[in-house]
């Protein structure tokens, strides 16, 4: 009996934590844990999506006017950037699953680079808002909110335009914070992957980081049309 216990210890994967029976249980727990965490994120963003829905319903013209003033090309590029990054992230998990370490590293690097690109473009957009005095409230001296640069649709109330921008900054700001966390998370994963920690038997951290990353992408998939495409049809459509 003693030898069998000793023999068993030799077989244990180094990543197996002592309170789990086996790697499969550990993997199941990790994956379940990340999904449960994503539920909290859905509810977190959900509150803001509700506020958006409410005020959009109440002030459609003001929202459309302000939305038209957002930079559609930059927003579209960012959407594409994130979709590509989700693709590279999925490939990263795949590489880990089949044990191709070089590919895993490359895909992680690409994903991180795309994430940073997204944040860079976002920073450009935010800077434009700062220059145009469209940052809500009296946050920055000398750049109090001033909607005069926004072309108002017929019937829109200038005062309510600030509401759109408040929500825009709150939602994209929170999204950006989550992107930053995601980039940090993937950087840690990249570090461990470079040290050869992940292989076909054990790569759960890559998987669950992927889950987080895809979730952040999904938030943007909704944010993009809801923020950027509200009023284009008023201006362009026939």
């Amino acid at each position: 009996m003693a030898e069998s216990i000793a023999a068993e210890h030799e077989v244990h994967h180094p990543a197996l934590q002592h309170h789990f029976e086996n790697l499969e249980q550990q993997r199941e727990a990790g994956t379940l844990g990340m999904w449960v965490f994503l539920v909290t994120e859905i509810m977190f963003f959900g509150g803001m999506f509700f506020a958006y829905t409410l005020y959009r319903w109440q002030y459609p013209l003001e929202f459309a006017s302000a939305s038209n003033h957002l930079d559609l090309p930059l927003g579209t590029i960012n959407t594409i950037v994130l979709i590509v990054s989700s693709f590279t992230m999925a490939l990263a998990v795949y590489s880990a699953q089949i044990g191709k370490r070089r590919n895993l590293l490359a895909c992680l690097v690409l994903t991180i680079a795309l994430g940073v690109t997204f944040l860079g473009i976002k920073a450009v957009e935010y800077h434009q808002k700062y220059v145009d005095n469209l940052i809500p409230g009296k946050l920055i001296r000398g750049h109090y909110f001033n909607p005069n640069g926004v072309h108002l649709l017929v019937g829109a109330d200038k005062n309510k335009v600030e509401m759109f921008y408040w929500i825009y900054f709150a939602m994209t700001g929170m999204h950006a914070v989550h992107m930053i966390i995601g980039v940090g998370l993937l950087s840690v994963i990249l570090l461990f992957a470079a040290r050869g920690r992940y292989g076909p038997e054990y790569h759960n951290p890559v998987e669950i980081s992927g889950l987080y990353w895809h979730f952040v992408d999904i938030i943007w998939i909704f944010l993009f049309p809801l923020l950027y495409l509200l009023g284009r049809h008023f201006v362009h459509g026939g």
Partner: protein
Amino acid sequence: MSEHIVPVRVYVLIFLALIAGTGLTVWAGKRDFPGPLNVIIALTIACIKATLVVLFFMHLRYSSRLVWVIFAAALFWLAILFALTFSDYWTRNWLIG
């Protein structure tokens, strides 16, 4: 429970679908559709894109029933937040009696 390895071509297909969806939503956003159709179209496309990401990139399609329930619960609870709060806002101006 063995892990399901999704073939790369599935990922490529989904990726292309997502790009197409993005193009479609921008194109549709600029056209003026009657009534609330603009919103409906935009949200539908977004929902389809999100569904593709969840099912294939996040492997929900290959996951246990428990994970499906967890995901469905999140959507359901979001629905509660929206529905019951709107029950206030939509009916505020209704007359009593």
